[in-house]
């Protein structure tokens, strides 16, 4: 297999509403990624576009709609979609284009424009529920998070304060992120615990916001990187993805088994047999604060029920032993579903090449893992990268 490196990344601001269309946002993020790598569209062999449901943008054939802005015009082009998991999965799809030897340079462009859907994208989210079993109950998407969070809290005896610490950490980490929508240097655990109860145990500040935004990364083969003397690169050393049954009422929600399976696959490829010792930092998917904890356990970076303890002890702070979401994550930077690639793959690249600026982890890091999650609490995608 050809060795694949990330050689550039770009992203737009993440905001509740942006004036730019999806195509315009894609162009901005793509151009930034190309410029930062010193490449042009002419260097790109193939393009992968990642974007979640068509209904957010209100445009069917959304992949085709975003094509021109994504640099895919008259090139081999594919749109991929695995719900929230797209944030990491589209890079995996880009990886196999290069790893297979089919392409030397692949652009991966992710976009989401959630502000177009009126009055709130919640009404579109609700369509992921089973039409016969679930929808007659008029469900709200927050319910699944509330039910999963409650199960997690109850089985392991986790306190809400310890979950709130994740929101505080990530919103504070986001202060150093120039694209952040919800950075807050002064937020406290009490702010989270006193915020509006939406669907208990989920409160307003436990949740990431809907956002508009786009992000892009460029993947290249080892040969290309050497020939073009590209210095800023981070290698993709492992990938994994896995999906569990849509029959979600038949699963114990306390542990994301599908994330663990995806992680084991990625770790095996990356020759990681002791993830807690060999992984220096992590960007797990954090659309809700408890999800970071849930995913750290799924990624085998904490024992079951142990992630809240690590958080309380400061292990997951930017200057801790295992920095988690140094980007600020979805909770701090924003949650334009697929475009969260900017904090997952983008942040790994920026951290591993020493370009993260104010967010740079103060100690040396060599190996990072990113993970995204989606669909009906059933999908996990994992990428391991090395400096």
């Amino acid at each position, binding site marked *: 297999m050809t060795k694949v490196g990330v050689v550039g990344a770009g992203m737009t601001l993440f*905001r509740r*509403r942006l*004036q730019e269309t999806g195509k315009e946002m894609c162009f901005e993020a793509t151009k930034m990624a190309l410029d930062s790598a010193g490449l042009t569209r002419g260097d790109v062999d193939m393009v992968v576009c990642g974007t979640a449901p068509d209904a957010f943008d209100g445009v069917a054939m959304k992949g085709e709609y975003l094509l021109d802005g994504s640099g895919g015009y008259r090139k081999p082009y594919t749109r991929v979609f695995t719900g929230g998991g797209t944030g990491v999965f589209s890079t995996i799809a880009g990886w196999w284009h290069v790893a297979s030897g089919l392409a030397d340079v692949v652009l991966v462009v992710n976009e989401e424009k959630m502000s177009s859907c009126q009055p*709130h994208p919640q009404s579109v989210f609700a369509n992921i529920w089973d039409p*016969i079993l679930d929808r*007659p109950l008029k469900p709200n998407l927050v319910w699944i998070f509330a*039910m999963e969070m*409650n199960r997690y809290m109850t089985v392991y005896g986790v306190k809400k304060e310890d979950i709130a610490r994740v929101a505080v950490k990530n919103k504070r980490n986001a202060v150093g992120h120039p694209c952040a929508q919800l950075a807050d240097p002064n937020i406290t655990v009490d702010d989270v615990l006193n915020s*509006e109860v939406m669907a208990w145990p989920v409160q307003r500040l436990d949740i990431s916001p809907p956002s508009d935004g786009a992000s892009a990364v460029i993947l290249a083969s080892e040969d290309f990187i050497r020939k073009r003397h590209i210095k800023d690169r981070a290698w993709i050393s492992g990938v994994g993805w896995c999906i569990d049954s849509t029959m979600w009422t*038949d699963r114990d929600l306390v542990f994301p088994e599908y994330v663990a399976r995806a992680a084991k696959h990625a770790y095996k490829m990356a020759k990681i047999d002791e993830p807690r010792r060999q992984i220096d930092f992590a960007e797990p998917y954090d659309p809700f604060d408890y999800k970071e904890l849930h995913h750290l356990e799924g990624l085998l970076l904490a024992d079951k029920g142990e992630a809240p303890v690590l958080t309380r002890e400061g292990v997951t702070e930017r200057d801790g032993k295992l920095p988690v979401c140094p980007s600020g994550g979805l909770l701090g930077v924003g949650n334009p579903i697929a475009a969260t690639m900017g904090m997952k793959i983008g942040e790994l690249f920026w951290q591993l090449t020493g370009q993260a600026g104010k967010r740079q982890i103060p100690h040396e890091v060599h190996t990072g893992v990113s993970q995204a999650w989606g669909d009906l609490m059933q999908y996990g995608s994992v990428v391991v990268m090395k400096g």
Partner: protein
Amino acid sequence: MTARISRWPGIELRAADLLEGKITQTRFRPDAKYAWSAGEAMSRFLEELQNGRFIARTCHKCQRILFPPRMFCEECFRPTDEWTFIHDTGTIETFSVSYLDTDAKRITEPILVGVVSLDGASPKMGMMHYFGEMTKEEIRIGMRVKAEWKPPTERRGSVLDIRYFRPLREGER
């Protein structure tokens, strides 16, 4: 972000800009309507709800009693074998106290909702539904509950033929 990038693209709009028509925009309301065939397994399931009972499918290979019922076993990847009735009692696996309706609008009287694993099905197999005849202070994971059915004449072959799951009463098991 990267220390080298100085301009981060994106022009932020305020909600007011949209509402007051201060920005150029275009609007569209799709008129999409759907009618789903319930399929083999779910059709029988919905018919049996009208009879006030839950039905499941068995898989002879993995020995599971599958609920909600399906015509194939996703584990063994073979057709399931037989219909079997299970009980209308079960255990709360998890729940939420929701102050949001389906459109994320705020409501003052919270909805109690969660997952019930049903007695007679394989462990942890169940369905989502509402809970009633209990307060938000009383509801807890592990609570034993029973389906509260609508009267037969009001049943329509829908999960709404069950009003909610309520606590077991004295003498019920």
